[in-house]
């Protein structure tokens, strides 16, 4: 059975002046997949994500996200995706309920539906007792979970997670990944970048970027075999190290 592509990238090039941040990237992401996007700092991950999210235009190449051309109608893409950044993305001086309300409002949800879904979500996360707590007074782990829940609150087709677990304790990290699995099982595609290589093992497929190019793309197990390494971490080091020492 042919799987449905939700992201289709062909020969994506992004240049900033003379510097090529993305050098002919090509990859597909399928519906309901957890797609890991790895690479050292400055490898071009952020640039690629910004293009996929409709924040930046590709210099050349074809980028389709949720069936929409990223160079032509980036604003349309924004309606269909969710986004959570490494930095904390909720308003600290707003309560849990107010934050959810705000995001629902931004995505054009009707008030009645919004409140209904909000309460359902709080219940699902067993967050009901925190509903009127200011984000500022929530522990970091809870904030991060809520942040993710908010990013998928409007039922996007794809959710982009940019280093979502940096600075989070292992237990919360585990819980967080459970949420990611649950989300993916609902048919929402998860596009995640991370620096934690153990997390990369959880992904359905991973891609590793180095100096603007994709240097590896497959399931974690296939890649480990291919390069003869025991873990993704070793794999990552093996792939990215040689070129880096040359620079």
């Amino acid at each position, binding site marked *: 059975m042919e799987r449905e592509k939700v992201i289709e990238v062909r020969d994506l090039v992004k240049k900033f002046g003379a510097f090529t941040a993305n050098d002919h990237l090509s990859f597909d992401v399928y519906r309901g997949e957890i797609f890991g996007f790895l690479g050292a700092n400055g490898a071009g991950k952020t640039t690629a994500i910004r293009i996929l999210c409709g924040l930046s235009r590709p210099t050349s190449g074809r980028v389709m996200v949720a069936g929409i051309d990223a160079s032509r109608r980036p604003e349309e893409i924004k309606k269909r995706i969710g986004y959570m950044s490494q930095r904390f993305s909720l308003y600290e001086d707003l309560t849990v309920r107010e934050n959810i309300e705000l995001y629902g*409002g931004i995505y054009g949800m009707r008030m009645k539906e919004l409140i209904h879904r909000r309460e359902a979500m709080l219940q699902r996360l067993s967050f009901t007792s925190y509903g009127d707590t200011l984000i500022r007074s929530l522990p970091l782990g809870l904030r991060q979970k809520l942040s993710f829940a908010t990013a998928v609150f409007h039922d996007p087709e794809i959710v982009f997670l940019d280093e979502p677990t940096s600075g989070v304790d292992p237990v919360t990290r585990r819980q967080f990944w459970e949420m990611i699995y649950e989300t993916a099982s609902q048919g929402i595609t998860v596009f995640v970048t991370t620096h934690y290589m153990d997390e990369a093992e959880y992904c359905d497929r991973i891609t590793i970027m180095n100096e603007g190019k994709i240097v590896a793309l497959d399931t974690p197990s296939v890649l480990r075999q291919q390069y003869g390494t025991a873990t993704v971490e070793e794999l990552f080091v093996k792939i990215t190290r040689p070129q880096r020492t040359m620079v």
Partner: protein
Amino acid sequence: MAFVRKEFIHIFRDYRTLIILFGIPAAQILIFGYAVRTDLKNAAIAVLDNAHDEVSKELTQNIEASKFFYVARQLDSYDEIDATFKEGKIRAVVVFPEKMAATITREGTATISLIADGTEPNTASLVTGYINGILSTYSASLTGELTATMPLIMPEVRMYFNPNLESHYMFIPGLITLILIMICSLMTSVTIVREKEYGTMEVLLVSPLRPWQIIVGKATPYFFLSLINVIVILLMAWFVFGLPVQGSIALLIAECMLYILLGLALGILISTLTGKMENAIFISFLALMLPALLLSGFIFPIENMPKIYDYVTMILPPRWFVDVIRAIMIKGAGIGYVWKETLILAVTALLLMVISIQKFKTRLGEAK
């Protein structure tokens, strides 16, 4: 709009912001009103009386009788003026022309020379202003007696619109100018930069909100709060200092709105220049507050500045706004008198808005 509501919540939940918004303007009014008196008390002046007639004597008495001046010296000739000023005690010399009373009776008018010590431009302008006030009053009383239609004594410098010789008249318009630019520009730039700093801006940008919607959402609450502030200041001016608005209040409010828009645009522009709140505050102070304070004619009259500053101030919106507000509040001028300034402000506001929105877009489009 959910976004605007959230912005209000931000403001009302942060009591520090509220203090800045409403406390500081109120405090400034009281400080300027009571402590920083820019009006005069007991300034020393000299009189060179070439006339020695009734009018000159009476005028000298009037000047002496006011609580602002005392006549420290009587001069005998023009030659003494230079030396007098060099001593540094005398602020101004009033020169009565020869046969002044006779000239007034014959020609209906006479000219008095007023020479002020320009080393302190601000004081000099006050001194001349006050003496003119006294001359005008006297002039008016003569007019009354003789039932003539035109003023009899024409001072060379004039300052009509401050008949009670109070500095409040000068500083309330200036203060409105200052406070508005502070709240609009400073607060808007800080609130936008804060979103950048916390990382929430990214989320907003990835959302379907258009850049202009984000800007409008950010600016709207401050627009209304600034308006409330204007009203508070005007009420304080009225009830605390007894300075009512002479002209149309609707026009005044409309001009304030225009100026607020201008300030908001400046704030947005500043927010595109930096990603740190401290920088935003710093830029606001340096680039907006100081010029507004020093070069708008609020404290230091532009007429006393070197010509070059006169041109420099022309590109500063506060200068035009101070003029407009003074004209409306104190002179009771209508739109007919301030249309030029209004037009300048409107064009500047529009220009700044276009630039800042454009910059906001491109900046966020490519920045990390």
